[in-house]
């Protein structure tokens, strides 16, 4: 936290977490060029994730996936007025320092990139810029929040267009929140141990019945119906990675997914926006993947 003119305090937990609150009910889209960023903004995206390659292409390319070239990120920041996020590798706090220096609005410490540290994540409290992190269950979400993440997303299985893993992770998180809600305090230490969750944060979840930060869905969302499914399962909003710009008609699909996320409980709207938006990304069936091809297991 920093004190500035007229008693302004920047980088506080309230403004970090509050920024994510402003994204709720919205769609955050992966983009790789200023032109794609404009398409996303025109469709009604609440933010864009600036990347060199979308997850499906990262998968196809293989090798080491790193933070994007800052020139690409800056060009995207120039092109749109909505918030711009960017990804840093797990544990790579220098990539995060660089992203903070160029002024991105949110950093995704992401398993989609090749991890830079096999034991430790970034100490996100040390930054003014807020972080979002992936999680598959409540324990993982609370560990990331303990490290300073101000927003959580399900990991799903990025770059596949197969929603099953995002569903699994969202259901798991919601089930575990329901399981601990209202439990007597003497039971919480043992549960914290089982879930590998920081005790104080687990106590907060048990007391309030919800995660202390906003929780988006990510990893495999490819259709308006997928987005609405995740919202009905309890997501606060959705990230769409490869699902838009790997589809036949990105502009139409992007717009349809935005409307489906707002009107997720209205099947008539969902039916209307699902019509005539071209083919979805082809995708990879997660069940047919080898264990080592899954990126959701990255993160500690």
């Amino acid at each position, binding site marked *: 936290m920093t004190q500035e003119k007229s008693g302004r305090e*920047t980088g506080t937990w309230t403004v970090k977490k509050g*920024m994510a609150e402003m994204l709720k*009910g919205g769609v955050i889209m992966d983009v790789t060029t200023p032109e794609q960023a404009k398409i996303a903004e025109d469709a*009604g995206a609440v933010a864009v994730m600036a990347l060199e390659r979308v997850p499906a292409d990262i998968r196809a390319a293989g090798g080491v996936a790193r933070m994007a070239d800052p020139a690409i990120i800056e060009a995207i920041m120039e092109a749109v*007025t909505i*918030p711009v996020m960017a990804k840093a590798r797990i544990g790579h706090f220098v990539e995060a320092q660089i992203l903070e220096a160029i*002024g991105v*609005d949110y950093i995704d410490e992401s398993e989609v990139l090749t991890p830079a540290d096999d034991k430790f994540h970034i100490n996100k409290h040390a930054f003014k810029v807020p972080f979002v992190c992936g999680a598959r269950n409540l324990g993982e979400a609370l560990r990331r929040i303990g490290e300073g993440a101000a927003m959580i997303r399900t990991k799903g299985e990025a770059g596949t267009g197969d929603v099953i893993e995002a569903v699994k992770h969202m259901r798991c998180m919601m089930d575990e929140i329901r399981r601990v809600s209202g439990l007597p305090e003497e039971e919480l230490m043992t549960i914290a141990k089982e879930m590998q969750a920081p005790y104080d944060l687990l106590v907060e979840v048990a007391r309030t019945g919800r995660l202390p930060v906003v929780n988006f869905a990510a990893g495999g969302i490819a259709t308006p119906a997928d987005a609405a499914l995740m919202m009905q399962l309890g997501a606060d909003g959705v990230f769409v990675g490869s699902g838009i710009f790997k589809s036949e008609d990105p502009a139409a699909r992007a717009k349809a997914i935005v409307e489906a996320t*707002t009107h997720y409980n209205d099947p008539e709207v969902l039916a209307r926006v699902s019509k005539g938006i071209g083919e979805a990304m082809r995708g990879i069936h997660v069940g047919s993947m080898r264990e080592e091809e899954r990126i959701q297991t990255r993160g500690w």
Partner: protein
Amino acid sequence: MVAIKLGVLALQGSFIEHARSIERCGARAVAVRKPEDLEGIEGLIIPGGESTTIGKLMTRYGLDQRIRELAAAGMPVYGTCAGLILLARRVLASSQPVLGMMDITVMRNAYGRQVDSFEADLRIPAIGDTPFRGVFIRAPRIEVTGPGVEVLAELDGKPVLARQGRFLVSSFHPELTGDARIHRYFLNMVSDMAS
């Protein structure tokens, strides 16, 4: 006494936080996603969020027109952050769809990007002597106010809370604090309108 029924525009953004703040003041909150949800509400809150997203969804579903009609017929409206942009008559360097009902000129993101987002104590005589904790997130700045606009709070010489008759705007987010004084102020505006 029947509780006041307020609509909260629920297309995107911090609408749940606004609904909670209103309910803490003893009023009822209704989520507004379509024009028909506006029927029977006594006032409307347009929350914080992404103003380009909210503006587009509002237009696509014909909400903008119905809100303008109801406001013209006397419905009070309170806009926070993105809501302030949508209420403004003029938004600098932008062609995004807005409601354009209040005589103010606004510059989006004028307080900077997210790393510049901040909290600051505000002096707001209209709601009492205790300072109000203003939470500013990629906040818009009110650059010019028309003659009918009353400035209720300032920061570094620029208005951050302003009122014009039945319209109220703040560039900060009272819904993110536990302090419901501004929501109560708006509820008083609504009940004054009704009586």
